[in-house]
């Protein structure tokens, strides 16, 4: 039942009514609203009950194994939330002067330093509010860099076909043409094709390494050289940074710009879709273009650098300081892990992924790149199952829900047919991996024995399989009250 369907006109929640004795008679009528907005009129208990029950209808990391490839659904330590919500942080107005916010600024400054350390970059700006905004900042910096050198003919961005959709979308937002680079059968970028594509029109290449296929591109040095030789720059999409923490740094691989999804590698909670945070790091030559604000230190005092201090900056990307509270959470997480803990993230995430890949291959599933090491994630192709039995990646995904496991990412990357991209993360125990593997085996046998059943899964969730086609065709995006007599 929707909250609106529990609403009754004239029911007030007195505890939230502010008594001001004020009227708005001073306001000319033309500015005023006539009919009240359609907001529910419920008691506090009705609201609490409604949203508590709704929450119970979600899968989440706190309740299920959630091996969503490239999304890095790992444990969100509770201390990060608790400490980022200390009253002194929550009550800080964004325009408070630096003299009153030294504790907050010190934390952001330290985070900048830590991110420099793990990426091997020379400067970091924390302001982008998600990975995609980090990309926007990064590509805008690349553009500003070329323009600052008068190198204005570069109008093309190279993007491997395995790239996340945000990469090409960002390119276009920054005014670039996007050119796709194919991937070889072994999962590495097709270096020949890249060499053919690269040229004086190349502004940059956007790469994820390990890629979203779940393999580490072994030719990264050659790629870097090819692009740099042509005067282009290298952009690192940090969505998979968790795979290589402390093992290899984007800076050492030759990248000029990197964004980091703090909501992935630094385990800030995904919140049912956000907020995230996408700090950007840059090499020396791009330093002047970093988006503001950035935190600087002078002796023991911290202060903001803004447009005035950074005249070449691509400027600000949010009204204030990006997703500050997410930054605090990431900072706390990074201190909980420390240097040893960060390396362990890469190590155990990789161990878990390789274990699952091996076991699932043994169970009869096809790895998309069977000859390769898995990184922190790996892709299966269910092409065989789809063709031979008629069970698609969607069917497996939906049925997994019945077994109490969230489905992996499906149909991404697009170049792997019937793809399942599986990322177990370092925080899952072997026993949970084994449980998932068992479920996959069972579903495989169900697929042979009772395909119809599989195709109608799930059965144990609040709803059965939803009609997504209808959702898009008969758009129903807001609730409307049933008018009496209709």
């Amino acid at each position, binding site marked *: 039942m929707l909250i609106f369907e529990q609403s009754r006109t004239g029911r007030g929640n007195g505890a939230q009514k502010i008594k001001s004795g004020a009227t708005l008679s*001073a306001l000319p009528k033309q500015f*005023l609203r006539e009919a009240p907005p359609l907001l529910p009129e419920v008691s506090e208990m009705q609201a609490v009950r409604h949203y508590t029950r709704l929450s119970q209808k979600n899968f989440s990391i706190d309740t299920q194994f959630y091996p969503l490839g490239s999304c890095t659904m790992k444990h969100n330590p509770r201390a990060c939330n608790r400490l980022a919500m200390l009253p002194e942080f929550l009550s800080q107005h964004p325009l408070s002067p630096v003299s009153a916010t030294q504790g*907050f600024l010190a934390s952001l400054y330290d985070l900048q330093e830590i991110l420099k350390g793990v990426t091997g970059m020379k400067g970091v700006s924390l302001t982008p509010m998600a990975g995609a905004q980090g*990309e926007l900042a990064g590509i805008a910096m690349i553009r500003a860099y070329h323009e600052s050198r008068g190198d204005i003919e570069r109008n093309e961005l190279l993007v491997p076909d395995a790239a996340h959709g945000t990469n090409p979308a960002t390119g276009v937002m920054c005014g670039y043409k996007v050119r796709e680079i194919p991937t070889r059968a072994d999962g590495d970028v097709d270096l020949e094709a890249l060499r053919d594509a690269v040229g004086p029109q190349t502004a940059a290449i956007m790469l994820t390494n390990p890629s979203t296929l779940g393999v580490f591109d072994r030719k990264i040095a050659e790629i870097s050289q090819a692009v740099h030789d042509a005067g282009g720059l290298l952009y690192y999409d940090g969505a998979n940074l968790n795979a290589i923490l402390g093992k290899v740094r984007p800076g050492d691989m030759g990248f000029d710009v990197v964004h980091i999804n703090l909501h992935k590698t630094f385990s800030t909670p995904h919140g049912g*879709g956000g907020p995230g945070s996408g700090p950007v790091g840059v090499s020396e030559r791009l330093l002047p273009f970093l988006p503001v604000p950035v935190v600087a230190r002078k002796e023991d005092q911290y202060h903001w650098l803004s447009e005035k201090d950074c005249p070449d900056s691509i400027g600000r*990307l949010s009204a204030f300081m990006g997703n500050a*509270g997410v930054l605090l959470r990431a900072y706390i997480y990074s201190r909980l892990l420390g240097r040893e803990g960060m390396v362990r993230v890469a190590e155990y995430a990789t161990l878990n992924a390789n274990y699952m890949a091996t076991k699932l291959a043994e169970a009869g599933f096809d790895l998309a790149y069977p000859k390769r090491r898995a990184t922190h994630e790996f892709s299966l192709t269910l092409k065989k199952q789809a063709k031979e039995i008629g069970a698609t990646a969607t069917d497996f995904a939906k049925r997994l829900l019945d077994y109490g496991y969230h489905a992996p990412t499906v149909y991404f990357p697009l170049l792997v047919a019937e793809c399942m991209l599986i990322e177990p993360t370092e925080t899952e125990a072997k026993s949970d991996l084994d449980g998932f593997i068992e479920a996959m085996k069972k579903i495989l046998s169900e697929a042979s024995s009772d395909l119809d059943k599989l195709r109608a899964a799930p059965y144990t969730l609040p709803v059965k399989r939803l009609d997504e086609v209808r959702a898009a065709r008969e758009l129903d995006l807001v609730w409307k009250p049933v008018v009496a007599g209709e």
Partner: protein
Amino acid sequence: MPFIPHTEDDVKEMLAAIGAPSIESLFDEIPAALRTGGLATIPEGLNELGVTQLMQARAKKNKPLLCFAGAGAYEHHIPAAVWELTTRGEFYTAYTPYQAEASQGTLQLLYEYQTMMASLTGLDVSNASLYDGASALAEAILMAVRCNRKSKSRRILLPTTVHPAYRKVSRNIVSNQDIILEEIPYCAEKGAVLAKSLDRYQGEDIAALVIQQPNFFGSLEEVDALTDWAHAQGAIVIAVVNPMTLAVLKPPGEWGTSGVDIACGEGQPLGIPLAGGGPYFGFMCCKQKQVRQLPGRIVGRTVDLDGKEGFTLTLQAREQHIRRSKATSNICTNQGLMTTAATIYLSLLGPTGLRSVAQACFANTQKLVERLAQIEGVEAIFSGTHFHEVMIQLPCSAEAVHEKLCEQGILGGYEPSGEYPELGDALLVCATETRTDEEIEHFAVQLETIIKNLN
């Protein structure tokens, strides 16, 4: 090991299954030449006790200020239930609801959110959030350019009464797409844009006009006239609104004869803590006919195999993960948790609660300005109708006053000399429903003393 559940035996068994001699060997595809020496600059790990002590010490270095500042972020009372529910693990630690059947909680909530926002703005549909108010305006401008097929100019009129940071952010985000943001001035007496001042654009090709209501100065714009003017020019109208004020102010969907096309803004007033500037959330609503140009996620109601009501992400073909370079925006991760808080906030307040907040904000700022105006040399700068923010004139250095107030534990407002040098010594002040009469009096007394001492 913190957060890693593996025992030594687990590791041994797993490596044996993989057929790898060590964890290290799993990284053997990384070229040796690139391998990192280590993370020497990263501090050692702390346990939770240590981190708690660290962050509590940091928190103590933040000095709480009595807040009379708004300028895009407002201190409101947040019912205790809002964050107790929002931080429930099932909301807090879920991902984007791609598997609809396993995400009905988040999805239904977002459908409710969309309904509330559409109703507040008086428009047909809402997306499920953007990053913040400023970037939402940038997205609205991009959307307007996409929607306005008739206009070829990519020219947007952007009054300087729009939040300065929003204008900058919009510029930074849209400028690589050859869009022209043309700033238009305000009436120095009213602190608002005069519709007749737009006469000079009459007949020109304008893609869109942006109107902020209440505007950055807290003044009310002539939204009906401005909207009608723009529509007459074939321009799209983008409203930037504070959703709290829409409990009482005319919703953008009703501005002028046909209402605006797009409304966007900052959702922070709806139950989101100030928190140093974020995370907040941007919202965007539009008319039904333009829904396919709307950026960001959208939730729709549908049915399951049994015909039972259910919710799912829809119109995904607008989004980057499907449409890639042709998407309406590159946005992926949005501000989901913040809309969760806002939806619960709005449910707890309801129409009367929200209205009472708006009225109290209006009344308190009124009181504040009246009280401050008793101070020699202090007065409201603009004569227009204001809502819950007012630009006041000071008889001495605004910067100095602002600093001294902070020393007294008061955040005295926003000091506009950087953005609006024409205003001289001024402060943009605000008193929401959380400010008491005693606090207003305290502010006034401090301000009076400081002015005396400075003069």
